[in-house]
């Protein structure tokens, strides 16, 4: 198991990443998240990266990948709390956000998840 805690709230899984992840730990985290979704039959996933000051292109790609994988398992993913510096770096790296939902904080993330699950109006217009 990775040292990142995973909290279950209703049928949602919340993953607040509080440590800086190196590549290997990130890959392990992805495995753990997917296993947990399977075990808990979660319908929504919120990954909180507000404590991270570095998100490189590898980690960015890994997060998008995780979102795609969980969607295949019937789980919508919202990435929340991306910091300003992180965003600027990702944009400069040419990161595209087509395949992932984002929100400002966990609360907003959960709200967005409810809308996504009910198939209601999405955030993106």
């Amino acid at each position: 198991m990775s040292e990142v805690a995973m909290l279950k709230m209703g049928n949602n899984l919340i993953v607040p990443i509080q440590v800086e992840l190196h590549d290997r730990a990130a890959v392990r985290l992805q495995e753990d998240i997917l296993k947990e979704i399977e075990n808990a039959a979660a319908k929504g996933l919120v990954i909180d990266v507000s404590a991270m000051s570095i998100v490189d292109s590898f980690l960015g790609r890994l997060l998008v990948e995780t979102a795609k994988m969980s969607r295949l398992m019937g789980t919508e993913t919202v990435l929340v709390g991306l910091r300003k510096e992180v965003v600027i770096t990702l944009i400069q790296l040419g990161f595209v956000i087509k395949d992932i939902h984002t929100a400002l904080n966990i609360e907003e993330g959960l709200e967005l998840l409810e809308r996504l699950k009910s198939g209601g109006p999405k955030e993106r217009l």
Partner: protein
Amino acid sequence: MFRNIVNHNAMKKGGRCRMKGVEKTKEQLIEELNDCHRRVIELEGAETKYRQAEEQLRRLSAIVESSDDAIISESLDGTILSWNEAAKRIYGYTFEEVKGHPISILMPPDRFNEIQPILARIKSGERVANYETVFMRKDGQQIHISLTISPIKDAEGRVMGASAIGRDITERRKMEEMLREQQRVFMEVSVPVVNIWKRILLVPLIGIFDSKRAQLVMETLLTAIEETQAKVAILDISGIPVMDTFVAKHLLQTVSAARLMGTECIITGISSIISRTIVKLGVDLAGVVTKTTLAEGLRLAFDLTNLQVVVK
């Protein structure tokens, strides 16, 4: 005139003439006098040429003296040979003070190493134009100088020295610095982010949108989003005079950045001209919500934040 005198003498002495004890025939004398005549004419011509040359020299040196630029001539090893009025005014030394001194007398010690490469280029016949450097005045004050150094060649085309024309650009530098400073101040005030409603930000973009401004807009907007946790940001571009692919690219980047943070962006103020330009340029603004007026953008922002405008 000479001929008349000769004829006169010849008549008097009966066809013979005695000069300094050497007896000469009339023909010889006439020949000699004609020779003299020719030489006088030659000399007169030479004098005219000399006078013209002198005139030319005076004119050229008057130009050099009255020039506003410091004009110095130096030998190939960098020794100062001449010095005009402007040089005296700009550098503070009189010619007597610098005559025979090396040109390095004008340079601050940390710039000595700039001299040799320039002299080397001059020696190979090359001209060094608008070389910007720092000189030190007699009073120790440092001044910015734009130098143009050209080789001076002799009649055979050999480089024998150099002329250095220096222009004092200290004022210009000061102006440039002032301009830069003003630009910086302008940049700082030119990206207002207004929190017009709870969790709705308005960013009116005004003026030329270059890469520096674009970067600043992005940073300012993201900072405001972090602080206010705004859900919607409205970018109003009605104040941008020119729309091109570059501006569009930066707008899209800003929108993507805001979205990564979880904030939706609406671009408003797209006039008919701008919308035509965007399509003609083939810019893809797909996925970005755009509206013509700010009011419509605001209405949409209310929608997104679950607010409603009600008539009283």
